[in-house]
């Protein structure tokens, strides 16, 4: 078996043989990423309408469906409508704390079968499997959004407590709810935020960050674009005018 020491030693031996390399540098990283992330948010705040408009345009270009509602309380009505049109009934939703509000009662009142996620982790593999099987049965997945990237029409979603990875993956219809606080303009800004999320003093989160740019798609058969191959076949981004967290 090759050990780390052997492996790195071989690399160093080969590296010593290189000659005439051109000077090259990696990308300069933000010195204080959390402060820079805050600065970006402040700078973006006044022009959020333009950013939102660009996001909408790009999101629709990649096949997403954009909605806009006044307040979080309007979301259950919208979700119920989407479910009815698609003859769907089962909704799996992030935990209320992760979503920003408890919408389960309102969804249930509209005739939906709601599976809200527990806040914390489950005891063992068997419990996890059981939960996942139920998520897999749901037709709609309701999540929040950590970043909405205007340049590419991308939703960035982090896993963590109360926000399992498969909510935005296994159901056929993904509904993501967001407000102006998560809007960013560019991938460059996303880079700063990612640095901030990984800074030593950043709050803990789950192990996976997913960039979602439209519905799951493939063109593997005769280059014919087909939606919903493994992930959702529809992605709905619901912009809430009022700040979700007040």
């Amino acid at each position, binding site marked *: *078996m*090759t*050990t*780390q020491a*052997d492996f*790195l030693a*071989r*690399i*160093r031996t*080969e*590296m*010593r043989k*290189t000659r005439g390399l051109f000077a*090259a*540098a*990696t*990308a300069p*990283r933000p010195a204080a990423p959390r402060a820079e992330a805050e600065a970006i948010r402040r700078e973006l705040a006044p022009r959020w309408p333009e950013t939102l408009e660009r996001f909408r345009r*790009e999101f629709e270009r*990649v096949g997403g469906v954009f909605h806009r509602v006044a307040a979080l309380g309007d979301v259950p009505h919208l979700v119920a409508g989407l479910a009815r049109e698609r003859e769907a009934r089962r909704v799996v939703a992030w935990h209320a704390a992760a979503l920003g509000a408890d919408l389960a009662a309102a969804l249930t009142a509209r005739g939906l079968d709601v599976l809200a996620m527990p806040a914390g*982790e489950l005891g063992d*593999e068997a419990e*996890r499997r059981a*939960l996942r099987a139920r998520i*897999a049965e749901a037709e709609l997945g309701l999540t929040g959004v950590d970043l909405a990237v205007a*340049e*590419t*029409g*991308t939703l960035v979603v982090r*896993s963590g407590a109360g926000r*399992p*990875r*498969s909510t935005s*993956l296994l159901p056929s219809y993904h509904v993501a709810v967001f407000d102006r606080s998560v809007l960013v303009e560019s*991938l460059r800004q*996303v*880079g700063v935020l*990612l*640095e901030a999320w*990984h800074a030593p003093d950043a709050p803990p989160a*789950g*192990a*996976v*960050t*997913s*960039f*979602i*740019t439209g519905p*799951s*798609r*493939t063109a*593997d*058969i*005769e*280059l014919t674009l*087909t939606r*919903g*191959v*493994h*992930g959702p076949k529809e992605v709905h981004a619901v912009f809430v005018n009022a700040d979700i967290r007040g």
Partner: protein
Amino acid sequence: MSEGELATPFRERAGRAMRDTFLQEALGIATTKFIGLRREAFADFPEGDALRDRARAIKEAMLQRLDEHLERLAASVERLGGRVHYATTPEEARAIVLDIARRAGARTAVKSKSMASEEILLNEALEAAGVTPVETDLGEYIIQLAHERPSHIIAPAIHKTKGQVAELFARELKRRVAADPEALTQVARAELREKFLKADLGITGANFAVAETGTVVLVTNEGNGRMVTSLPRVHVAIMGVEKVVPSMTDLMIFLAILARSATGQKLSVYTTLVQGPRRAGELEGPDEFHLVLLDNGRIGELAGPLREALYCLRCGACLNVCPVYRQIGGHAYGHTYPGPIGILLTAMLSGPAAVRDLAHASSLCGACVDACPVRIDIPRMLLGLRRELDERRLAPWGERIAFGLLARLLARPRLYRLAARVGRLLQRPFARDGAVRGLPLALGNWTQRRDLPVIAPRTFQERWAALRREDRR
């Protein structure tokens, strides 16, 4: 590709591909479409060129400190509770994965598209060890059912028609489906959903790995990369050492150009950043995370002539624009990695003798350099390989004699002029109306499909000499 097929000379494999009329049509449509999509994507992206330069510089900077970046990557992964393994050879890499599978008691392994796992022939090894590997990228799934290999880095099944896929599903899945991409995709979704939910082991490659944070980055359009890293109990990622990038800031630069180059998308649908196993508080995700760092000829090229090929992002853009690839497709190359970059990677993995023929499978037109997001100078390295083949006397003897003669002729003007006169005599039986047809031997390779102009009755230099005499009069 089996050993038997590799025994067929490249020219014959290429010829066979060219007689496959469906393949020809599919290739024409696919490569033309990809070229157009890429061109449009960069046309409305003015910063694209500068980002490509930066990405290239980052790759170079990364290679100059590869040891440090890998050490940091390993430390980050271990800090998160993951394990790092080191594989010098394909055998070693296979043994590592099989050992993980055995400890996990895995019966089924779901895989998201990974060229590194193709390169080490992992599926065959898993099967032999009683673990069923299931490819989950739709294209890979199709070719796995058909017992074939990918013909394109990012569109592995472009050589198949929907009719062929429907027949394949009927035979292998016992499902009768219309030859309609939508219907076929839904069948694959249902079949694979089952596999995802019951697999014990998830195997992926890595488009990038961020040293600073220990994050493995997977780029897919279908979502299978997310499935494979979320659902099974154990996740193994296999990556070539050159895939490491220093930081998240660097990563974003690559993401901005990768999908644009590959499919013309601004981003692929899913970019998944996986940082070790399931965290405290998470409801799902694997218990175990393993990262296999693969050498397989790469480290030996750090100071070698193919070093620049280590910049490759595996976007496939060079395949689409390559006039040779567009004629013959991926299978004719006969190795894991097709197309112009594939020739270099094959030489890296298997040594220059493995590309004795392939090194010449390029007109050196340079379209690949223009298309490459990190501007890898593929023609320059092909020239280097050809030179090495000559210097190590690996070129066929007939060719070496021919070029030896040519060299003499071109270095001696008198001999050159004599050759022109002899050529004029010899061409007579084949020449008509200023064109030559039906030449024998190697020259027949030209005249089979094209006329050859005759050696002029008077060369330019003869006419020039006459003109000068007139001028003086």
